C-alpha cells in the first residue's frame, strides 16, 4: 500500500479533520475523542501501523491535548517507493474537567506504560486500561507535576 493512498483513505474517515503532510513520511491529523477506538483499531488492522512510538499529553491551558505517534516498522507501507518508514501523528483534544479517553493498550502493548506515564505526570484517565497506576512517581504523590498549574518549591532564585 502506498502512502498517498493512505492520505486519501484517512481523509474520508469519520471524525478526522485537518489531514496534512508535515514531512514526506509523516501525516498529521486531528481526531474526535468519541471515535478514537474505532479509528485506532482500523489503523492497526488495515493500515499496518503495528508500533506505538509515543503518547504525549500536553497541557494547553485550559484544555489537554493528546498526541499519538504511530509508526509502521515492517515496511508494508511504502513512501513513494523509498525505504522510509511511515508515521501518523494523531491529535486528540480533551476537556480539562473530564480528561479521559479510551485506552489503546489492548491494541498495542507498548502503549500500556505510555498511558500510565500520561496518567502519572499529567492526570489523563484512560478508560479500559488494565492497570492504571503511577509508574514513575511514588504511590501517594500529590498532584500531576507536568501540568502547568502544578506548583512546587524551588529553593534557589530564578535567573
Amino acid at each position, binding site marked *: 500500500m502506498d502512502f498517498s493512498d493512505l492520505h486519501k483513505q484517512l481523509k474520508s474517515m469519520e471524525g478526522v479533520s485537518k489531514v496534512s503532510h508535515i514531512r514526506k*513520511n509523516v501525516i498529521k491529523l486531528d481526531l474526535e475523542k468519541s471515535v478514537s477506538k474505532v479509528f485506532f483499531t482500523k489503523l492497526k488492522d488495515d493500515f499496518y501501523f*503495528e*508500533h*506505538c*512510538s*509515543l503518547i*504525549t499529553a*500536553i*497541557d494547553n491551558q485550559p484544555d489537554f491535548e493528546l*498526541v499519538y*505517534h504511530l*509508526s509502521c*516498522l*515492517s*515496511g508494508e507501507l511504502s513512501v513513494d517507493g523509498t*525505504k*522510509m*518508514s511511515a*508515521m501518523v*501523528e494523531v491529535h486528540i483534544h480533551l476537556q480539562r474537567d473530564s480528561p479521559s479517553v479510551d485506552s489503546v493498550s489492548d491494541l*498495542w*502493548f*507498548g*502503549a*500500556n*506504560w*505510555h498511558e500510565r*506515564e500520561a496518567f502519572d*505526570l499529567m492526570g489523563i484517565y484512560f478508560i479500559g486500561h488494565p492497570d492504571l497506576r*503511577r*509508574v*514513575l*512517581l*511514588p504511590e501517594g504523590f500529590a498532584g500531576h*507535576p*507536568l501540568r502547568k498549574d502544578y506548583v512546587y518549591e524551588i529553593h534557589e532564585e530564578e535567573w
Partner: protein
Amino acid sequence: MAEMWISMGPQHPMTHGLWTLKVKVDGETIVDADPELGYLHRSVEKMGERRKYFMNTTLTDRLCYASSTTWTHSYVLAVEELMEVEVPTRAQYIRTIMLELQRLASHLMWAGAYMPDLGHITGALYFWRDRELFLNLLELPSGSRLLYNFMRIGGVKRDLPDGFEEKTERILKLFEQRLDEYADLFENSKIFRMRTEDVGKFTGSQAMNMGITGPNLRGCGVKHDLRVEDTYEIYEEIDWDVCTREAGPGYSDCFSRYMIRIDEMKESVKIIRDCFKKMPKGPTMSARVPIRASGEAFRRTEDSRGEALMYLVGDGSDRPYRWKIKSPMFTTISACPHYLKGYKLADIPAIMGSIDICIGETDK
C-alpha cells in the same frame, strides 16, 4: 507447588541500574513479572520547560549515561526541525563520526556489563578495556570523558583536532583484531552459548507490538533501522548495510541479540572510515541560529538502544512549552513479563542483560 513473589532490586546485581523486578515463581519457573521504575525520575521534561533551548543540551547529555551524545543529537535534531536551521555538511560528518564512536562505546559497555551476569568476569575486563580506547577518542574533540555536550543547535562545538583521523584509524585497526579475538572467546564458547541460546525468545511481530525497537528488533530478523528509514545527517551517502540476525524463523534469543550488537560494531567501524574518506572542508556551525521558536516538531533517531523520539512544542518564547522524550527502554522493560514467562529464575540475568537496559533515559 506454592507460588511466591521475589523482589529483585533496586539494589541487585541483575538490574544494571535502579529498577525493581518482582517475579512470581512456581518453584524455579517464572509465572509472572512486574517491573517497577521511577527510582531515577529526575523530571527532565519539567526542568526543560524552565530552561532555554540551548541550555537543555546539558540535561540531554545526562539522559543516558552510556550513550550521551546520541540523546543530545536527537534533541538537537528536533530543535533544528522546529527552528528550521540548516547544518553545514562538515558538521554533519563530524556528528556522524561522533555518533558512531558513541555507539561503539555504548555497545562495548553493554557487553562489559553483560558478561559478569553470565559469570564471565574476563569478558567484562576485556570490553571495559576496549571502551576506554573509544572514550579517549571522544575526549579529544569534546574535552570530556563521558558527557560531551558536543552537539550544538546548528552544528557542533568545534572542529576535529589535528591528527584525529590517524588516531582513530589506529584504534579501529586494533579494535578489529580484538573483535576476532572475542569471536573465539564468546561465540565459540560452549558455556556462553548454553547460557544464551533459546532463552528469552520473542518474535518480530510481537516485538513491534510491545514497543521493542533497535538492536533487539533487528535481532529478530526485522530489517528496520531509522538511520535508513527516517534518515538524518549523511547516513544516505555513506556506504554501509543494515545488519540483521535471527535465532530461528522470525524470532530472537539472547545469543542473536548479542551477535547483532557485534555486527553493528563492525558496521560502525565501516561508517567511521567512510566518513573520514568523504568529509569535506568547511564551517562546523550554522551562521545564524534563532533562539525563539514556535510550532511543533519531532525527530526520530536510531539510538544505541532503539528508537529515540523527541517531541517539542514551542510557544514563540525562548523556552520549550512542552518537551517529551521517548525512550526505547521504557517500553522494552514494560514488556518483560512477556519474554520472561516460562523461563527459570537463573535465566533472568541472561535475558534482562541482553536487552541492554539504561535507566537514565527510561526514568527521564
